[in-house]
């Protein structure tokens, strides 16, 4: 095992520098001549004093203690960890994209605006919506934006609707977003097949229903076959249907939320459109709406004039306002646009087909060693239950930790909440059959280990830079910075 890794602050030696700044070529005065001394820093910020090689070695070593898609298989259900194409990184770094300012004269950023305009339209076509905003910075941010539009829509009709319905399998951000948008959340249980229980839904809707939030396919990897009926129930009650696009990788070119009856949809570009997750952001969560919600889109929107030039349209009196500074995470939008253009519509459809084929293949192969609570066809992900291993004292968490010894990032575990000892697997389309087979074989052998030598699984991992960490201590006695100052 590797030794403990020093913090960069611990490497500091007075007098070392890693920076190179120009000499001051203008007449210089003491800072106190410009700013009252009482406003100046009484004590310098205690940043580390290191040289450039320290910086490079430190972060290179940290990178080696981290696992990304380029290191290996990452079957993290509902997170869609597909290959992040290298060309996306090249294009986003072009000076004409990375080195531009949002307040430049609009005629000096026409290329950027054309990209945004085209991407808006492409995403509208893909989701079956009438217009798209690219402003939200992440999926959860898109959810909140969508719900704020739903709120504004109802208010514009003089209706006060206070409740948002979510299924028990929904992403945790759904109820959180509803709360921040000022709604009360009603959770409805799923039926024994893992689908929305229509009776429970009928009982939950009423004149106070603002929206139902749904992901389709669901977090169980199942397509809601009765989606049209669900839409009818919600619309009849005067509510709107919100599509959580986290699982869009399963349906591109095959079916569209807009055609299923959804009124609002967000896409997670860091999932479906391959933009890198970056260890937890930046993402992008564009939101598409049907025409009756267009007036409420955040302002500005990118628009095109008859002469072919592009501009920001701020003249939107019914808009919910701004949700993000400037125009969204443009650098991420450049990557997503680059990705879309490597495939085109036929290619994106093939992406979904292969993602779904991979998931069904894995589910079939794993069904002998693990319980599959919802058999049949799955979409791009599926859930298993590790409860069969509990009789040996082994839990799903232990299986996940054992996978680390074989060089895999574990699947999502303990989510969704309505499956006991849940394991959620999403292979994506960019993994080969050999990779899937090797992973399945490993999962089967871990199940066997759990039965024959459970202590091997319970003590895993063995080869990582640290072993199982004490999360209770971290929360009870929080140490959240190095207190170096």
């Amino acid at each position, binding site marked *: 095992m590797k030794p403990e890794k020093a913090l960069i602050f611990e490497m500091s030696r007075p007098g070392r520098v890693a920076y190179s700044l120009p000499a001051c070529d203008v007449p210089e005065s003491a800072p106190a001549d410009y700013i009252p001394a009482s406003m100046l820093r009484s004590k310098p910020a205690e940043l580390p004093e290191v040289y450039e090689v320290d910086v490079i070695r430190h972060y290179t070593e940290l990178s080696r203690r981290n696992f990304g898609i380029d290191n290996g298989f990452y079957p993290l259900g509902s997170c869609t960890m597909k290959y992040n194409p290298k060309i996306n990184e090249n294009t986003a770094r072009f000076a004409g994209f990375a080195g*531009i300012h949002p307040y430049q004269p609009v005629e000096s950023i026409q290329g950027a605006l054309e990209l945004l305009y085209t991407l808006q339209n492409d995403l509208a076509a893909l989701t079956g919506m009438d217009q798209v905003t690219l402003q939200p910075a992440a999926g959860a941010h898109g959810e909140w934006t969508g719900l704020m539009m739903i709120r504004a829509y109802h208010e514009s009709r003089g209706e006060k609707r206070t409740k948002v319905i979510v299924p028990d399998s929904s992403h945790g951000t759904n109820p959180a977003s509803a709360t*921040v948008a000022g709604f009360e959340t009603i959770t409805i249980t799923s039926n024994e097949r893992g689908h929305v229980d229509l009776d429970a839904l009928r009982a939950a809707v009423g004149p106070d229903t603002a929206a139902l939030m749904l992901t389709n396919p669901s977090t169980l990897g199942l397509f809601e076959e009765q989606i049209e009926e669900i839409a009818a129930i919600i619309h009849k009650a005067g509510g709107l249907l919100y599509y959580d696009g986290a699982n869009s990788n399963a349906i591109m070119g095959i079916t569209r939320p807009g055609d299923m009856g959804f009124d609002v949809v967000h896409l997670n570009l860091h999932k479906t459109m391959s933009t890198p997750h970056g260890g*937890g*952001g930046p993402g992008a969560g564009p939101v598409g709406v049907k025409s009756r919600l267009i007036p409420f889109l955040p302002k500005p929107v990118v628009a095109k004039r008859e002469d072919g030039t592009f501009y920001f349209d701020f003249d939107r009196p019914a808009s919910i306002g701004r949700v993000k500074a400037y125009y969204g995470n443009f650098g991420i939008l450049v990557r997503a646009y680059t990705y879309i*253009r490597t495939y085109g519509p036929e290619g994106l459809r093939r992406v979904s087909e292969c993602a779904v084929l991979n998931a069904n293949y894995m589910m079939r192969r794993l069904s002998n060693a693990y319980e599959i609570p919802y058999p049949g066809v799955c979409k791009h992900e599926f859930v298993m239950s590790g409860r069969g291993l509990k009789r040996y004292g082994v839990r799903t968490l232990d299986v996940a930790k054992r996978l*680390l010894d074989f060089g895999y990032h574990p699947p999502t575990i303990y989510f969704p909440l309505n499956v006991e000892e849940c394991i959620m697997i999403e292979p994506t389309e960019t993994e080969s059959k050999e990779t899937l087979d090797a992973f399945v074989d490993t999962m089967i052998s871990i199940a066997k280990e759990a039965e024959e030598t459970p202590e091997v699984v319970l003590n895993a991992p063995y080869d990582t830079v640290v072993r199982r960490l004490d999360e209770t201590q971290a929360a009870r006695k929080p140490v959240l910075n190095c207190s170096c100052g």
Partner: protein
Amino acid sequence: MSYKHRYIPMTEQDEAEMLQTIGAQTIEDLFRDIPASIRYRGTLPMSSALDEQELLKHMKELAGRNADNERFISFLGAGLYDHHIPVVINHIISRSEFYTAYTPYQPEISQGELQAIFEFQSYICELTGMAVANASMYDGATALAEAGALASAATRRKQVVISRTVHPEAREIMHTTARGLGLEVVEIGYAGGVTDLEQLQSAVSDQTAAVIVQSPNFFGCVEDITAIEPIVHARKGLLVVSMNPMAMGLLEAPGRLGADIVVGDAQPLGIPASLGGPTCGFFAVAEPLMRRMPGRIVGQTVDRDGKRGFVLTLQAREQHIRREKATSNICSNQALLALCASVYLSTMGKAGILEAANLNLQKAHYAASAIGSQSGCTLPFPSPFFNEFVVKLPDGASAAELNRGLLASGFIGGYDLGETYPELAGHMLVAVTEKRTKAEIDQFANRLGELV
């Protein structure tokens, strides 16, 4: 199926074998659960596929139609600055172990990311003088709105008082957020380029959850936090300060001036402007507010063998546990850009951050005097400023027109304040960083003088 693509490994033989294992005839069978009535038939009307050569050419063409800061000399700030980005940063963030990783849910194989975030939190605490910082927010503007929301939840009060010297877009987002949470937002005017203290004094009451100020503010002026702090705390409201982290090399840390929440945008710390995103918001609080902080937090702990390690912690605050009780829905943050900021601060170190801040200060003040001596241009605000200042153009001059003229001469001019402050039509906000040379400043001032 003969479709081939460089990102997809599926061969015809794989497809056949896998379908056989599943017991399906075709891939189509795997979509039998999608009703025919909602199946999309035909080809989606969207952009077509390009091969790699064509795609690079197309993207270069789009990029080439934008005036970037390599080809143009920028004096534009207004929240996003043209600072030098040390070359090591791109090398570090291009390491795919960082940029292709997910959120560090499996700490044993994510120690690199977790330690990097822990160090980011340490840097932010050190710069702000606050007790605790989180793992980052979407940007400075959304962080500011979250601060208003936190203050309301912590004080159980519904009013947020915000200075008009706060970035106009951050204020807009505060208004949007407030509509969701049912908060009242009261804006305070300015005098001499800084928050009007008399107006502030009369607006703050026992209903006030937070007073939000920015320093240096949108006009570049340094606010007198020591004068604002007692007004807020006398009524038991919380003081929220938004700040420019680069300025913290020189300016007193808000944590030592009584701030309860400090937010800001880390863009000046090694992050490209990129049409305004992605950047990286930061969020720091005083100890009593620790468990109310939105977003992710990394904590230090030990592993089974007693070795130091890092984990995501205090997750009970987060939406996957509290769900509908959550007061924030932030999930993913800006980890990769927090890494940019960390590498930047590692590179600058104790001496570099001070030196960089001082260069900004010196050059901006030189530019202000150079522009102020041009025919008809004046500096309307007497308050101290850091690296950005307001210029009043001669009567009748339009900042937008001037900027077009400047662009033709190779300059990206200042921000047209008339866009967001109608009373400041004919005023321009000029930013000067360490990147600008004396010669560039002189040329800019001359050209400005010729054009007005």
